[in-house]
């Protein structure tokens, strides 16, 4: 298969099949519907499972069940639908079940709207469900990057025995772009699922149980510390980012997903005008790539977080730079997509000396 022209949602669906997805459970919501639509046609053709569940809550619990049986499982939804799935995601993290969740974000809170947004940042990176757990999460900016990460995410979920969330805004779900589905990716070697409740373990004389309930607080604390060890391993190994024109930068924009694409256009114009702007583009949003903010060149005077939300990611930038530089902010909400000119104006107002105290 050479390069093809695909819509984000269908490209993610095909990438999931290529990543070895055995089963999909989901419930419709705009702007991600082409994803289940594509899978409803193509999963049965491949002898794989597609189920439209009666609700998001049902779908995530089907994911729990199929993952517990050792399958590679996917669900997809958009912001309010993801909120409904949070209970199941916490149960999966507690039971150490792998699974991939694709979130094609739209404006909130509540039902919000159907236009693109990044306002699920806190929902994704700060839990959402109960307990001390994290979901490994990636926020790609192009369809090629998205396809590669979706394919890889199944092996990452298996390796860490943890849910992985792909967070894209509605634009990436809806846009068209040339994409190569069969690019080589680095897959983690997944250990055999000897923990799965698939009938095999009984033959070995040990019955596997998949459960997140643990009534002995000392046992539950021990389990929590085991999970923490795993999260620290993710923080050590899975921080992903791209640094763009930072070496001589006076101001560094921090942006991910569609916002990073728009920031690229802004940086090109700013550079043409002689303003030294650069970008740090988080690819993983949990773990947040704090490493990218260590040892920044001394030319950098300011950071500027730019989001399609109102300062959610900025908090992680502030934590990462730890008071060493001011962190300015520009964002739009509710489904409004900023134009490059808005970012350019913001940068100029900062460079011009109108800095806020942070």
């Amino acid at each position: 298969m050479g390069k093809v022209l695909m819509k984000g949602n269908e490209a993610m669906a095909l990438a999931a099949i290529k990543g070895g997805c055995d089963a999909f459970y989901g419930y419709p919501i705009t702007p991600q519907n082409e994803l289940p639509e594509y899978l409803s046609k193509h999963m049965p053709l491949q002898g794989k499972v597609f189920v439209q569940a009666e609700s998001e809550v049902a779908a995530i619990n089907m994911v729990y069940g199929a993952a517990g049986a050792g399958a590679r499982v996917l669900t997809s939804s958009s912001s309010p639908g993801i909120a409904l799935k949070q209970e199941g995601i916490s149960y999966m993290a507690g039971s150490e079940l792998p699974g991939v969740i694709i979130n094609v974000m739209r404006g909130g809170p509540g039902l919000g709207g159907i236009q693109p947004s990044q306002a699920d940042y806190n929902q994704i990176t700060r839990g959402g469900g109960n307990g001390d757990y994290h979901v490994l999460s990636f926020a790609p900016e192009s369809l090629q990057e998205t396809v590669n990460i979706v394919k890889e995410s199944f092996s990452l979920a298996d390796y860490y025995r943890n849910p992985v969330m792909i967070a894209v805004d509605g634009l990436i779900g809806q846009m068209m772009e040339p994409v190569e589905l069969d690019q080589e990716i680095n897959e983690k070697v997944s250990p055999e699922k000897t923990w799965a409740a698939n009938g095999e373990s009984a033959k070995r004389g040990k019955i596997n149980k998949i459960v997140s309930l643990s009534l002995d607080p000392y046992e539950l604390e021990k389990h929590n510390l085991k999970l923490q060890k795993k999260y620290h391993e993710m923080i050590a190994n899975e921080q992903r980012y791209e640094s763009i024109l930072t070496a001589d930068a006076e101001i560094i924009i921090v942006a991910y997903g569609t916002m990073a694409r728009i920031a690229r256009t802004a940086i090109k114009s700013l550079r043409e005008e002689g303003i030294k702007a650069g970008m740090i583009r988080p690819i993983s949003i949990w773990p947040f790539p704090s490493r990218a903010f260590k040892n920044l060149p001394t030319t950098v005077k300011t950071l500027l977080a730019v989001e399609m939300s109102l300062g959610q990611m900025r908090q992680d930038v502030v934590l990462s730079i730890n008071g060493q530089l001011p962190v300015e902010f520009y964002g739009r909400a509710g489904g409004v997509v900023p134009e490059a000119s808005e970012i350019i104006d913001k940068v100029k107002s900062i460079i011009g000396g109108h800095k806020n105290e942070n």
Partner: protein
Amino acid sequence: MKRITILAGHYGSGKSEIAVNLAIEESINTLVDIDIVNPYFRSRALRKLLNDHGVQVIESTIENSTGSDLPFISAKGSHPFINKDLRAIYDLGGTELGAKVLMQYRDFIQDREAIDLLVVINVFRPETATVEQIIESIKKLEDTGQIKVTGLINNTNLMDETTEVMILQGEAIIAQVAEQLSLPIRYTFIEETVKTKTHFMGENKSLIRHVAKHWL
């Protein structure tokens, strides 16, 4: 161009971009956007540009509410079939489902010879990559919409990565479809970034992207 041109094709085949290009360039005064499939990148988002070119936009959501995904179709959508002063382009939603919307107009259609139903094809869309896939999709479209396809449009592209060779690759496949179904290739659209002197099958037109955002 006939008085009414209906553009159909798989979603992402380029119907909306072509609808806008034709509406601006040709003597068209009405663009009917009856895409109830797609929530983003719809031709109605270009209302101002089209109005400036003397084109009125009739759309499939409650007027000016781009934030809605209710499958609502304005009753005005039937006007071009009734009012012969209107020269219109219909932009259907993707796949055969988009054609379902057409069925409601069947009783209004009097001058069938004034109507073209053109199928937009990009062979780099994996669902319409082969002769067999394209023919199957055309049959489904005709069955669902209860209307005959009258021509094909070669819109083979990989956006700004398109080359002349790719357009010819598309032409080779689409020409086979045209032959098997006895249909003409009415237009070839050429991505504006492609510099070529080749004459492709049908009327050749440069495709200027209005719907897609420049930073995408």
